[in-house]
């Protein structure tokens, strides 16, 4: 049964706070006149909520930028570090996402999944020889691909919990269970929000289709694959126990099975430890 009303959802997410660690770091860094620019960018890009909220502002039609801004680094070049700092501070002023929620969705494990998927997505882009100027876009896409889940946990925790429980118990994909209980899944919710916020159509598409290949692109292939690697290596957990088969459309991109691809990437444990060091520092 569909229970999600778009307008209500959009208003809710406008007020949704960011993750505790990044809020705390943003408050610290914005109180230090000598804080390094790259540290501020790193903190913002370690939080899917803060990242989408800043991309939303910079991509608004009011700044009429010649191209969509898909990373915080690009945003700094266009609108300046101080504005980005102040935008981050205004997100921080909304409070912090509570570590517990009525859906029993573990937000720390979710964040670890998002951050590792982001890093893996960039790594895959580099492997596919994506231009250097686009690699941070791949990172951001990986970071925000599951944004819809954290929205569900806050906005519709009762039904989201039912979906999480069913997915765990019956070992079915979480997005299928979400659809059953809420009439919509996290990829679709992510798409609705990303569209409302006028994000890059390529990013919107990648969020919408990160579980299917209806509109396969280099970006969606990298997100899909990074997502499966992160799940397979158990880097955090975002509620979906199922590791999906690599679809036929994606296989030629990497020309390797998932296991062989993972082996070819070498030691991936630093990706997890780096993300953990941010979450726990």
């Amino acid at each position, binding site marked *: 049964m569909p229970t999600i009303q778009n307008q209500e959802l959009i208003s809710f997410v406008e007020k949704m706070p960011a993750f505790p660690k990044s809020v705390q770091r943003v408050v610290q860094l914005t109180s230090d006149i000598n804080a390094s620019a*790259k540290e501020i960018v790193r903190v913002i890009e370690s939080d899917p909520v803060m990242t989408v909220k800043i991309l939303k502002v910079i991509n608004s039609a009011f700044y009429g930028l010649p191209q969509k801004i898909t990373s915080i680094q690009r945003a700094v070049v266009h609108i*300046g570090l101080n504005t980005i700092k102040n935008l981050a501070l205004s997100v921080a002023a909304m409070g912090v996402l509570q570590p517990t929620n009525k859906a029993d969705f573990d937000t720390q494990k979710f964040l670890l999944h998002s951050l590792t998927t982001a890093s893996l997505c960039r790594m895959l882009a580099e492997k596919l020889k994506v231009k250097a100027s686009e690699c*941070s876009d791949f990172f951001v896409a990986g970071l925000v691909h599951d944004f819809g889940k954290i929205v569900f946990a806050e906005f519709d925790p009762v039904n989201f919990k039912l979906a999480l429980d069913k997915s765990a118990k019956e070992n079915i994909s979480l997005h299928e269970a979400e659809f059953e209980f809420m009439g919509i899944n996290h990829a679709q919710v992510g798409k609705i929000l990303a569209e409302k916020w006028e994000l890059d159509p390529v990013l919107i598409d990648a969020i919408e289709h990160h579980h299917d290949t209806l509109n396969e692109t280099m970006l969606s292939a990298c997100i899909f694959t990074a997502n499966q690697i992160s799940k397979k290596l158990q880097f955090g957990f975002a509620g979906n126990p199922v590791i999906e088969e690599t679809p036929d459309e994606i296989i030629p991109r990497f020309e390797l099975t998932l296991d062989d691809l993972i082996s070819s990437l070498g030691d991936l444990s630093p990706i997890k430890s780096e993300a953990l060091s941010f979450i726990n520092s």
Partner: protein
Amino acid sequence: MKLRFWGVRGSIATPGPNTVKYGGNTTCIEITTDNNDLIILDAGTGIHPFGLELLKKLPVTAHLFITHTHWDHIQGLPFFSPIFIPGNEVQIYGGLDPVTNEGIERALGVQLQYSYFPIREAELNAKVEYNTIKPGESVSIGNAKVTPILLSHPVLNFGYRIDCDGQSIFFTGDYEPVFNIYQPEDDEYEEYQSFIDQKQHEIIMAMKNVDALIIDSSYTAEEYLAKKGWGHGTYASAIELAAKAQAKKLFFTHHEPTRTDDQLEHIYAQLLKDNPNLKYEVILAKEGVDIYL
């Protein structure tokens, strides 16, 4: 077009014997088109003497474009006499602040409050209207076309290009060329540099072939070392931009507030000596001189 600087000083007004030649008022630039349409860039303290001059030509219709809302670019606005006189019209243009989500009306509204000024906005007698404008979208004022572009400063800042009757002017507002926040050994360095190069290209295209290029040149290269990230450019960065844009005249403005007339002239003489082959004229912006392009 006629161009006249009414304020050339950065940050704070600096009256006194040491600034009497170039001027101590903060930023305000008059542009009068051949058809007598009036475009004003910024409302620093220089807009006060300009407003007094305009009282001789009532009624006034003025189009005021604000580059950004730091004090030195808006502080003269409540003292711009035409706003108090019925029959005048002042159209104010500027961008939407990304952090507060407020339009340019805040620049005046915030100053016309009981604690800061004796007259409230509701008491202004001229027709004063606000226009939120977007980068890349031109505004037509008579024959003139004014086009904003987003330029880097600690707050939202528009540069403006004015094209009219076959002539053109570009003013940066406050502007520091973007620098790489990463070190060459960082993984992100190359990618970030490619973003900077794209943006730089966009800026040069917006300034391309202008007859008058007016640039924030607050610092010498030596001073800049201690002021990187403060949002202002140098004489050298202005010269580089003007060369790339193939401008015909380059005006240095936003003079550093502690800079005396003598120091300005000393720096200027040194710049000419260090750059003997400039293909365009370089000029220190000076208050009160009519410049016909």
